[in-house]
């Protein structure tokens, strides 16, 4: 894959993004283009604002009272931070999977159905649930126990259940915040396979501490780093292959070779 193959279609774009926690500038002047139906990995040392940037894409930072976002994020030509835009609506288009699997304490069926229900879905719920569970590679394992509590599943299964409920509301973008870091290696591999399958229909942005995972799974990689006064900046962004074999900046090379982390 070379630079000329980057298609002109971006799913979502961040322009001059600055995010504050109170007076502290956590993320500084980020410009980031996310390619449609590709997997973009966000890597970088601890505390450089990776999760904060990820949460900016579906306005989840607003749940933290002291967080303040400046700049724009453009989705389908519209700035999602414009005052007339409802964050609730954005989160239907941009779904999220969290680091520690957090299924609802409801049945497996209700876990998948609930999101669609509250968003006003009125079609055949059984079909939607089956379709979503198949899309998350979980259907075969749970089809006979749909009314069992979601918390009775193993960690890897719970995470796939969380993915199933996310795709049940048919978003176009899925954000994943270290989705496999709380799972064992076999479950991790399953999640990575799943990510490649999902990328055919969804745009995926994944934050990961695991560089090998980023190299295995993603098409594009954004390397974030700490600048002065611990503000996070976007140091380098390119095709994954380029970042890991021939990075432009020294800091990128130092990070991926493990000289700091």
């Amino acid at each position, binding site marked *: 894959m070379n630079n000329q193959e980057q298609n002109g279609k971006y799913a979502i774009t961040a322009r001059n993004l600055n995010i504050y926690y109170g007076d502290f500038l956590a993320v500084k002047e980020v410009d980031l283009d996310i390619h449609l139906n590709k997997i973009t990995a966000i890597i970088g040392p601890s505390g450089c604002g990776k999760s904060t940037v990820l949460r900016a894409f*579906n306005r*989840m930072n607003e*749940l933290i*009272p002291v967080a303040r976002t400046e700049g724009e994020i453009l989705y389908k030509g519209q700035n999602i931070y414009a005052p007339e835009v409802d964050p*609730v*609506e*954005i*989160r*239907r288009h941009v*779904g*999220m999977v*969290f680091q*520690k699997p*957090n*299924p*609802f*304490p*409801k049945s497996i069926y209700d876990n998948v159905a*609930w*999101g669609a229900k*509250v*968003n006003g879905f009125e079609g055949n719920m059984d079909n939607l649930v089956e379709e979503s569970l198949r899309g998350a590679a979980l259907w075969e394992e749970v089809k006979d126990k749909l009314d069992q509590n979601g*918390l009775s599943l193993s960690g890897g299964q719970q995470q796939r259940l*969380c993915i199933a*409920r*996310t795709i049940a*509301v048919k978003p176009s973008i899925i954000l994943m915040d270290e989705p496999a870091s709380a799972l064992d290696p076999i479950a991790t591999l399953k999640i990575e396979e799943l990510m490649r399958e999902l990328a055919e229909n969804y745009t995926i942005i994944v934050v990961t501490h695991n560089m090998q995972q980023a190299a295995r799974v993603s098409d594009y990689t954004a390397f974030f780093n700490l600048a002065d006064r611990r503000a996070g900046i976007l140091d380098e962004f390119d095709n994954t292959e380029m970042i890991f074999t021939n990075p432009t900046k020294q800091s990128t090379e130092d990070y991926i070779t493990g000289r700091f982390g």
Partner: protein
Amino acid sequence: MNKDIIQDNTHEIKDYQAKLESRHRRGKAWQIVFRASTFTGIIALVILLLNIINSAFGYVAIQDAIPPEDLAVNGIPIESLHEIDLVGILEEHLSAGLIRRLESETPWEERSRDEILTLVITRVVEPTVEDTWSLFDSIFNKDKVLREQQEKFPESRLEFKSWLSADFLVTPQSPEPEFAGVRTAILGSLWTIAITLLFSFPLGVGAAIYLEEYATDTPLNRLIQTNINNLAGVPSIIYGMLGLAVFVRILEPLTSGAIFGAVDPTTANGRTVISAGLTLGLLVLPMIIINAQEAIKAVPNSLRQASYGMGATRWQTVWHHVLPNALPGILTGAILALSRAIGETAPLVVVGASTYITFDPSSPFSKFTTLPIQIWQWTARPQDEFRNIAAAAIIVLLVLLLTLNATAILLRNRYSTRD
């Protein structure tokens, strides 16, 4: 552990063994203190219960004004007589004026045979309890009981009486301790509690939801929170005075039912069940709010994040996830509030609970009394026998409390979705 190894590794700590033993000894001493305090609590509870049971059962010396055998007509005992014969006995032994009054209240034809028999027993036979003995004496000092009975009341008969009986529960108040029951008080308590919970539970939980999920951290909100915390510690009599001023006096048209045209004929003022319920509702409101807040705070944030991530509104998140998850804790708060409210006496005295009424409360706007007030009133009377029925009423109150608590705990367990 091999002593040599210890000495080798810890040779820098002088007298390690001795210090180790002293640390264990100190731990054991504290363990004894904790055990002793638990034990003391249990002992206190057992003594309390034994004391109550002691007064609620025992031998009594009963003297009849006219023995029932003397009233038998043609050898037939009064229990088997027809109404006509029973009415005849009444007319023979009671004054004309009393007969006229009884008839004008309810004519003989409308009274059942059992009612007339009860009249004969209470008004003609007139069994009077002349003396009572505690359960302890009745079981262990029976000869002393017999001796005292023969000395003081030779004409009386000795009966083992359980002051707590089915009759006791369904009989209304009476000036005679033998015939008094807690029916009015139980109903009054239940009515009052119902109004208290109906008023304070939705308000309290709503306030807690607002404070935890919607309110931002402003100086005003912090002031409100501090005030609520402080109100939980205000003495209950002050709530009584508040209830008197606001519900009984200022809101009299509302609490007496005048606005609804439902004024109770027995009391045309604000000293009604609804005033009592509202006063107690204010009293337990801070408790419910604080407990509900704690329960909501304990809901893991990951659950909220998952819900918001699905594109749910704040209300949907609260209603579908936060509240069900917090429900066990919220219900616990309600149980505590209920237990507190049932036992409150002082504020209800101020609000105007009656100490002597004989009819059941028929609406929120009627006069009322409650179990604790009844108990207090009976323990203050001079006759000893009132102490016995006070003990029986205490047992009723404890059973009522335990039942309500058990129901609430069952409900809490059933709706707990945590596991």
